[in-house]
């Protein structure tokens, strides 16, 4: 059974030895952290707003059924559709069915963590629909066939030289001698390459930062404008959202919006915050003809009423990872699933099973910085400790076995992700262990290696050897 969260220790070791990654992480520590501190200092009401944000979400979580029903009724009234999906698989199939209903060839995508969580890109591609990521960071990692390493800056680990490499390789119709040394040139090239894709796409898929029960609106917050082009130009707009994204009113969204950009990038407000309410109206000059909300549970409803409910207040701002010494040392890929950092250390075991992600709640110095900066007052260290206790107390129960199988299925459906992480793991372990051939200990892995020696893998994964030997896939 191949997973990658279980190999957090070796992923981490590889990350520590990666100079590009280390440079990016150093920059992040001065960038995001200083910018957030400045933005917070300019808003004396910030702490009061945090309390209010927490209270709004707590109120919603204790009335989630009513708010979701109200939201659904409003979406329907506005001419849209809500699709309830229990699992990632149901969400993927729902999206594919909508794409097929208009015989879609290409789909543009705004940045969406739910899209990553359900693995929509690989699934669409396997079924003959080409997904095109339009957020610059997502576009870069799509070309590099990598998962994101940060929830708001997915390509934070990629230096500009590597971006240029991918662009030269992919945009091979352009002049091979063009200069792509500077970020400006790279941004301009991505802009011009993606222009036509927006206009050609049959379906646009975005995520949502909020769902508004009062109006049936979905909200996206972006800086690039790609999400708006994605949802305005195609015939169909599909919104993927997990069910805890709901807030009662436009006022409540405004309160939390005052926290979001400041916590994320240190901006007072992002360039574009868009409230979408149903498909285009009969007299409208433009906009999508169909509006679908794919509402994903994927294990979240089971957290209600448990000690883990607090994580459902998360607004995905990324502040906890920006301030985390462990994330700051190893980056996002080491965490081995879509959500890294402290919020990922809590959410990942919840979604893929505590046996698969048992290392993650340990990936903490318990310094408490994440909780200090979390705009929604989520007690992240406490939640990580709950998991440590659980992992310790529980052996393999039928429940965790099922979760493990789910994890295996997750990677089985994402051959690229599997190869990426399997390769990462092999390289890291091989590099670290070659000298001795055997590990006695790995950093951050005391609990793991204390009781067993791990043989060091030699060389490539089976699939890499198969490819190198000319094997067809």
């Amino acid at each position, binding site marked *: 059974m191949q997973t990658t969260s279980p190999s957090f220790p070796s992923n981490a070791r590889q990350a520590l030895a990666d100079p590009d990654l280390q440079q990016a992480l150093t920059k992040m520590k001065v960038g995001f952290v200083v910018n957030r501190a400045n933005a917070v200092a300019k808003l004396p009401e910030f702490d009061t707003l945090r309390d209010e944000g927490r209270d709004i979400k707590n109120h919603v979580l204790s009335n989630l059924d009513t708010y979701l029903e109200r939201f659904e009724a409003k979406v329907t009234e506005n001419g849209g559709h809500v699709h309830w999906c229990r699992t990632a698989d149901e969400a993927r199939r729902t999206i594919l069915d909508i794409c097929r209903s208009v015989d879609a060839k290409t789909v543009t995508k705004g940045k969406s963590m739910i899209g990553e969580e359900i693995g929509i890109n690989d699934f669409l591609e396997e079924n003959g629909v080409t997904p095109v990521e339009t957020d610059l960071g997502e576009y870069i990692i799509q070309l590099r066939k990598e998962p994101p390493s940060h929830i708001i800056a997915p390509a934070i680990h990629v230096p500009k030289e590597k971006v240029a490499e991918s662009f030269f390789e992919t945009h091979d119709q352009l002049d091979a001698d063009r200069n792509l040394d500077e970020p400006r040139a790279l941004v301009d090239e991505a802009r011009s390459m993606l222009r036509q894709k927006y206009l050609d796409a049959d379906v646009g898929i975005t995520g949502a930062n909020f769902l508004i029960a009062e109006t049936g609106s979905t909200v996206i917050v972006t800086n690039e*404008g790609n999400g708006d082009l994605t949802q305005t130009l195609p015939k169909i707009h599909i919104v993927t959202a997990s069910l805890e994204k709901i807030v009662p009113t436009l006022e409540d969204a405004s309160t939390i919006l005052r926290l979001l950009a400041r916590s994320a990038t240190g901006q007072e407000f992002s360039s574009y915050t868009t409230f979408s309410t149903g498909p285009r109206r009969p007299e409208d000059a433009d906009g999508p003809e169909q509006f679908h909300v794919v509402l994903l549970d994927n294990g979240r409803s089971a957290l209600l009423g448990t000690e883990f409910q607090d994580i459902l207040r998360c607004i995905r701002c990324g502040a906890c990872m920006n301030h985390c010494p462990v994330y700051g040392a190893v980056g996002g890929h080491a965490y081995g699933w879509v959500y890294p950092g402290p919020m990922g250390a809590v959410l990942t075991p919840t979604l893929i099973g505590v046996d698969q992600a048992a290392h993650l709640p340990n990936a903490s110095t318990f310094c408490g910085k994440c909780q200090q900066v979390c705009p929604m007052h989520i007690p992240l260290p406490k939640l990580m400790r709950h998991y440590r206790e659980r992992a310790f107390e529980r052996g393999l129960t039928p429940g965790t076995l099922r979760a493990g199988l789910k994890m295996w299925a997750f990677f089985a459906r994402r051959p690229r992700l599997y190869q990426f992480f399997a390769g990462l793991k092999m390289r890291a372990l091989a590099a670290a262990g070659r000298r001795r051939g055997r590990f006695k200990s790995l950093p951050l892995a005391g609990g793991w290696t204390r009781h067993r020696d791990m043989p060091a893998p030699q060389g490539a994964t089976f699939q890499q050897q198969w490819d190198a030997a000319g094997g067809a896939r």
Partner: protein
Amino acid sequence: MTDSARARAQILGMIRKGKASQTPDGQSPDERIDAKRRGTIPARVDKDHAALVELFVDHATALSATVSRVDDESEIPGAVADYLAGENLPATLCAAPDPALQALPWDTRPALTVRYGRSDGADEVSLTPAFAAVAETGTLMLRSGPDHPTTLNFLPDTHVVVLRESQIVGPYEEAWDRLRAAGPIPRAVNFVSGPSRTADIEQTIQLGAHGPRRLHIVLVQDGEGESDGG
């Protein structure tokens, strides 16, 4: 029961099961939605209207938007033409088919070519009216409608927005009140704060990622006396 109906019932069932172990907070969702209660409004917007106008301009320019101010709406065509000439941009624009924009004396600047409608991606410059603007963060509020194509806000390289001083409010909540008073919520409400930007390559900020590279605001003085001060 269809699959989707079964999924819906099961998800709601799970939620209700989880809810049973929580203590209700005593607020009914319906009442809460009807009350539209505001959270804390930052004290920075606690100002008279003239000061809010200045606050808006300060915030918008800090976000790399540019602002030109005119005393009367008859001066809008001149301000637009001068801005385009100053930036070395073509004197051709696609404007929202908004009656107030169409009624402007465009013939005073015959060198300008104005077309009305949605953008097809070929236009370099667009011109749209704002619905409101939020001084708190220098943010424009734009809304979709028959006279207000959303494509004009995102496709062209340069976006010029006409804003009247009386449309400037303090916090977002005032803008929502005005929108609700104007009828049902439109399909799209776009809050725009400065031009498009990205920091996805090595965390260096670049303007003009996918949306407009330039955002220019023509701010028209229209007698702040009619405003209620917020």
